[in-house]
């Protein structure tokens, strides 16, 4: 009788372990740890996910005013390219997605046209005085050229993968098309890009 009882408990234990293991394998049980806990003789420290832009915005959230990303006196057919660096300053792999929105009188259908090139580098030629500014971005565009007069995904899911300590250049080209109407003279606009980094669990 005792042997049968022991056998049942052993059987139940095995089943319980299998249930627990299946939950772990399905990946439903991990959680975001935002604190560290110390057990006797050992220390558990949470990972750190930190997206920075040009080295700015350490820690969670924040807004970086990239005033260098601007241009004055644009005329139709001119364009300017800008490069920023998205960096993983933490120790967790993540993917970055982004949305963009421009506001102002120049942010209309036939106004400023934006292009976003993850991994691309910027190159500029010409002069403002001659009205020959020409910016280019290398690499494939994930957005544009198109206006950003409503919030749009400029880097759609699954996004750009950045490993810990890694960095990815991001090139943004801003152009005023030849079709821009004369009514846009003197108009202006500014843009806001919102980046979202989420950890990547699978290798």
């Amino acid at each position: 009788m005792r042997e049968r009882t022991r056998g049942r408990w052993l059987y139940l234990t095995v089943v319980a372990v299998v249930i627990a293991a299946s939950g772990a394998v399905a990946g439903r049980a991990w959680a975001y740890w935002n604190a560290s806990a110390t057990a006797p003789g050992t220390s558990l420290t949470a990972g750190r996910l930190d997206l920075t832009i040009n080295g700015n915005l350490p820690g969670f959230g924040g807004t970086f005013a990239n005033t260098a990303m601007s241009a004055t006196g644009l005329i139709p057919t001119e364009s300017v390219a800008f490069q920023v660096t998205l960096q993983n300053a933490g120790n967790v792999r993540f993917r970055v997605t982004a949305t963009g929105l421009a506001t102002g009188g120049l942010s209309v259908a036939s106004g400023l046209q934006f292009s976003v090139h993850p991994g691309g580098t910027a190159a500029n030629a010409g002069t403002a005085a001659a009205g020959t500014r020409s910016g280019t971005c290398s690499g494939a565009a994930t957005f544009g050229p198109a206006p950003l007069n409503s919030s749009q995904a400029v880097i759609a899911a699954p996004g750009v993968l950045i490993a810990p300590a890694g960095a990815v250049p991001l090139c943004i080209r801003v152009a005023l098309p030849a079709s821009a109407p004369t009514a846009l003279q003197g108009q202006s606009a500014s843009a806001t890009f919102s980046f979202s980094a989420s950890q990547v669990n699978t290798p």
Partner: protein
Amino acid sequence: MSMQPSPKPRWWRRFAVLAVTCVAAMTAGTAAWAVFNDQATMTSGTFTAHTVTSQAAPVCSNQGGVLGLLGFARLTWTHVDARYEYTYTIVQVNNGNVAASGVVTPAGAAGTAVTLDVSSSLVSVGLPGVNYDVTVRARLKAAPTWTAATATVTRVHSVNIILIGLSMSCGPL
């Protein structure tokens, strides 16, 4: 001796139901995991479009050969911007007819002089004593539709020189 399977006791059924429920809860339905994330926002500076600026009112001077024969009116103004060119329209005042029109495209830099010579041949003058208004407007060379909001108007008139022909002179008749 034969062995008969004993019926499963009640506790076994309860345990089986519990186990199935646990597995179902852990593998189905809405996920309960959380992930690290970070939100970073970047704002740009300002992008501004150019505004085409009108040139100053041209200075008109009478030019011509000996004794002013076959003379013409020369309009001169300062080049505003290297990106500009200037359209002109010459309208006969008494009837509104467009006598001539065209574009002056300076080759020089901003600040250099731009000239437009209004001669009798340019406006195909047939009669003396006729007033003409010369309208000059700046525009972008790269985008001709982008023009200055204001234009300048300079009046000239035709003059009959006996035995020689018609000349153009600055100012109204």
